[in-house]
């Protein structure tokens, strides 16, 4: 479960370093307050929700929370780097980068971790309907973005305007 928790913290914090610090603080809190764990609660749901709660707690102490949740492009991009593999799905990375943390996490919890809408809602402290609504909006948006035809390059347009035979000589 630790790699999954770390991924959750990374996506929430916007990078590996930020995620490591957030997860460490959350785990320390969970160890200190383990008596708060209620029997019957799935352990992963409890652990994920504690990491999210820790993040919200720290955010509330910030003078400018909106500035704090903005992720650094480079840090966030390195999350997707795999050793010995050069392929990166740039359109998907750019799409995730542009989302607010709560929406990114909704996608991660359902499509990455396989949680049901109810459990994802418990973790993010929202209703299952809210999770479903977010997923519909973002799925449609990503699908539209991925199906857009890439804009033609300026140089290519110039080439078609001046075919080979009619090019002006220098």
């Amino acid at each position, binding site marked *: 479960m630790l790699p999954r928790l770390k991924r959750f913290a990374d996506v929430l914090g916007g990078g590996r370093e930020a995620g490591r610090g957030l997860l460490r603080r959350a785990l320390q809190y969970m160890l200190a307050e383990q008596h708060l764990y209620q029997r019957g609660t799935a352990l992963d749901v409890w652990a994920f929700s504690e990491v999210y709660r820790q993040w919200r707690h720290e955010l509330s102490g910030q003078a400018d929370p909106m500035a704090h949740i903005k992720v650094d492009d480079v840090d966030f991009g390195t999350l*997707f780097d795999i050793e010995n593999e050069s392929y990166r799905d740039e359109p998907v990375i750019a799409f995730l980068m542009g989302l607010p943390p709560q929406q990114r996490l909704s996608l991660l919890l359902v499509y990455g971790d396989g949680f049901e809408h109810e459990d994802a809602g418990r973790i993010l402290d929202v209703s299952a309907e809210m999770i479903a609504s977010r*997923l519909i909006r973002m*799925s449609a948006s990503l*699908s539209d973005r991925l199906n857009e035809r890439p804009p033609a390059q300026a140089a290519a347009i110039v080439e078609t305007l001046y075919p080979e035979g009619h090019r002006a000589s220098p």
Partner: protein
Amino acid sequence: MTELSDELLVAYVDGQLARKQTRAIDKVLEQDDVLEARVTALKHAHARLEAAFEAILAGEEAEISKVTVPPPDDGFWVPWRTFKIAAASTGIVLALGLAALGYGWPLSLPGAGPAPDIGVATGVGSGQGTGPASQVDLEVAPKPQIGP
């Protein structure tokens, strides 16, 4: 063309619909190419999202395994470290054995005479020497008598 909302289509793609609803949509998709293309696009988007999240997880697992697994040692049949410890132990045992063979046991320094014979013959160490020194009887010659 049949109008189906994105809400329904996403629920269909995610497997959130009841069996009856799923069958109904399957039938509609067989007849409507536009809707089928939309569903394919949604499935494609989800697959790419899942792949992106898998990539992050693979990175995390690699990072954690780097921390926990020590690097393998070099060596022929056994790691160098084990070989060094074994060689040092063998050397120490061999040196002690040779010393015992060369100088006898208990050890005595060469040129310092034989090892002292401890105890049995003289009674030292058997408890007799622990008390006050024993009285020594000296033979005293009889005084010469002066005749009258």
